[in-house]
């Protein structure tokens, strides 16, 4: 095998020591501290923005009739889309026996959790009276009212909370054997106690491993339809509505493909610098990057097909409102955003057809970043251009994000990175026990 998924010469001991040393023996680095400090400051910005929102209400945002959904929903869909790669890599690639997933799954799962946390903030914040968010949950109350289960917004509550919970379980179950490794190798008493509590007394018994494997496989089997259902339900938020540009049946598959697309792009954007900083090139190899690039290219083409079908159907439907919606997207006031989206999401990723691009970490990083930006623009186009000019010209309007829109969005990026920095510092970024399995398999070949 010319391109390997693990560097040569590794044994059970070396993979264990190498990965656990990032957490256990590495000193606090200045880069880490600076990175964490910047993210933490952005978290403070988020708190300020949220506090001001609670005090003044959503009038501080740029939303108004007819554009009731602005940044909050754009960012919600963007984050939840990014949050799809983790479970996809962990569950679907596990079921497909793609062994190269091993060194990126832990990290992608953590990324998923943090992205879902950021995503879940937005629907709550945009409620108007966020302190009544618990009214979305069906519980017996003195008001005698219950949620409307025919509304996709209620489906969303169940989809997101289930997805968050299952992602957390999947991630934590994967961590247990590694937490045991950290417990056994930590030099400080504090570390032994904390990792010991989290490892729950795992001792690697063969009988335990047997049940563990069954549970992990079952979770993967459950998470696979779940990951597809979540973004399907998110797309229902739009597709169930009758707004031109939203009311289309292609939304569920094209949203799911877009989610995987942006998720892989985010994994790439994060893993390329991380593997360089922590010297993990033996574990996250050239082959991983190339495989991820191929998945991105494939899902990117599905997304391109979605855009094409959207345009085709709006013409083919012969519906004047659908036709106008499409023309307005291409040539209306938000046209630059539409064409930027086409550039970032469709044109730029075509570079991935070339092996030279797929094998250059630097170029891949820029393509992946372009895709992340493009996917954000896509959600902007879907949310804003569909709403701003619908059936009645008298009710047309424009949407401009305010300072508070931006600070909430940038604040969640800070929250995401702050959690990611903590994760890198305190938990093994690569699944150690699965790397040992990989060593065993490559040795016996």
């Amino acid at each position: 095998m010319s391109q390997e998924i693990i560097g040569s010469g590794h044994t059970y001991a070396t993979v264990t020591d190498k990965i656990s040393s990032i957490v256990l023996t590495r000193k606090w680095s200045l880069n880490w501290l600076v990175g964490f400090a910047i993210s933490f400051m952005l978290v403070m910005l988020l708190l300020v923005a949220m506090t001001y929102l609670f005090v003044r209400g959503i009038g501080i945002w740029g939303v108004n009739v007819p554009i009731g959904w602005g940044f909050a929903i754009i960012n919600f869909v963007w984050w939840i889309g990014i949050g799809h790669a983790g479970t996809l890599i962990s569950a679907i690639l596990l079921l497909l026996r793609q062994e190269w997933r091993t060194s990126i799954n832990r990290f992608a799962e953590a990324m998923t959790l943090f992205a879902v946390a950021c995503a879940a903030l937005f629907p709550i914040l945009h409620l108007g009276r966020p302190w009544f968010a618990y009214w979305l949950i069906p519980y017996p109350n003195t008001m005698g009212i219950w949620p409307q289960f025919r509304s996709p917004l209620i489906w969303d509550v169940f989809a997101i909370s289930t997805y968050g919970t299952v992602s957390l379980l999947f991630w934590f179950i994967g961590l247990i054997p590694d937490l045991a490794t950290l417990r056994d190798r930590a030099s400080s008493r504090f570390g032994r106690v904390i990792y010991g509590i989290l490892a729950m007394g795992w001792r690697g018994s063969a009988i335990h491993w047997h049940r563990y494997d069954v549970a992990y496989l079952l979770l993967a089997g459950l998470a696979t339809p779940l990951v597809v259902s979540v973004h399907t339900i998110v797309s229902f938020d739009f597709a169930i509505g009758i707004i031109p540009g939203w009311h289309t049946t292609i939304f569920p598959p094209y949203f799911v493909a877009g989610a995987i697309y942006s998720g892989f792009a985010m994994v790439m954007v994060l893993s390329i610098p991380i593997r360089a900083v922590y010297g993990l090139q033996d574990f996250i190899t050239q082959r991983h990057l190339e495989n991820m690039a191929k998945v991105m290219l494939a899902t990117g083409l599905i997304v391109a097909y979605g855009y094409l079908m959207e345009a085709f159907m709006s013409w083919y439907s012969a519906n004047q409102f659908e036709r106008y919606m499409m023309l307005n997207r291409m040539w209306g006031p938000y046209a630059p955003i539409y064409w930027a989206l086409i550039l970032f999401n469709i044109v730029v990723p075509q570079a991935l057809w070339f092996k030279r691009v797929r094998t250059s970490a630097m170029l891949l990083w820029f393509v992946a970043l372009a895709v992340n930006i493009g996917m954000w623009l896509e959600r902007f186009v879907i949310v804003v251009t569909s709403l701003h000019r619908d059936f009645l010209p008298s009710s047309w309007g424009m949407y401009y994000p305010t300072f508070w829109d931006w600070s909430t969005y940038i604040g969640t990026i800070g929250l995401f990175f702050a959690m990611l920095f903590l994760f890198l510092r305190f938990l093994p970024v690569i699944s150690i026990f699965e790397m040992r399995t990989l060593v065993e398999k490559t040795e016996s070949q």
Partner: protein
Amino acid sequence: MNKVAPIYGVLAEFENPDDLIQAVRRARAAGYRKMDAYTPFPVEHLPEELGVRHSGLPLIVLIGGLIGCATGFFLQYWISVFAYPLNSGGRPLNSWPAFIPVTFELTILVAALSAVLGMLGLNGLPMPYHPLFNNPRFALASRNRFFLCIESSDKRFNREETSKFLSELKPKGVSEVEEDSVNE
């Protein structure tokens, strides 16, 4: 000392999974039954060699999934038909196609929770203390060593003979596991 400290079992240490599997076979052939192997990663065929048949987990997950499914659907049915009937666009009160997403999500949620809690429950975790942790070599079970422990509760267990038997299996080392932790 007039009393010998009770031991949990005798622990043999191996360098690779193949030696461990050989040792498990020999130990079972010699009639030992109460034993367990400890490895840094799941070793294929090892549970079968130890005589483990079914994990029992798939049934738990199936039951969990069915409970989630029924809860999800009937919660919505009861709310929409009895507790708070709303006429939305002339649809029937039991507009079941609209109830599918929540039913599906709750099915997955309860099934996933029962997979995790079932696995932990069957494994007896969390268990913060276990006699094996008294053995200083055992920390390597989470790094690069493979252990076989024949427990003192086995009928054929004999402190000297079992240690001797394990030594014949060409291990890296054989040591005893104290039942109670030694107080420093």
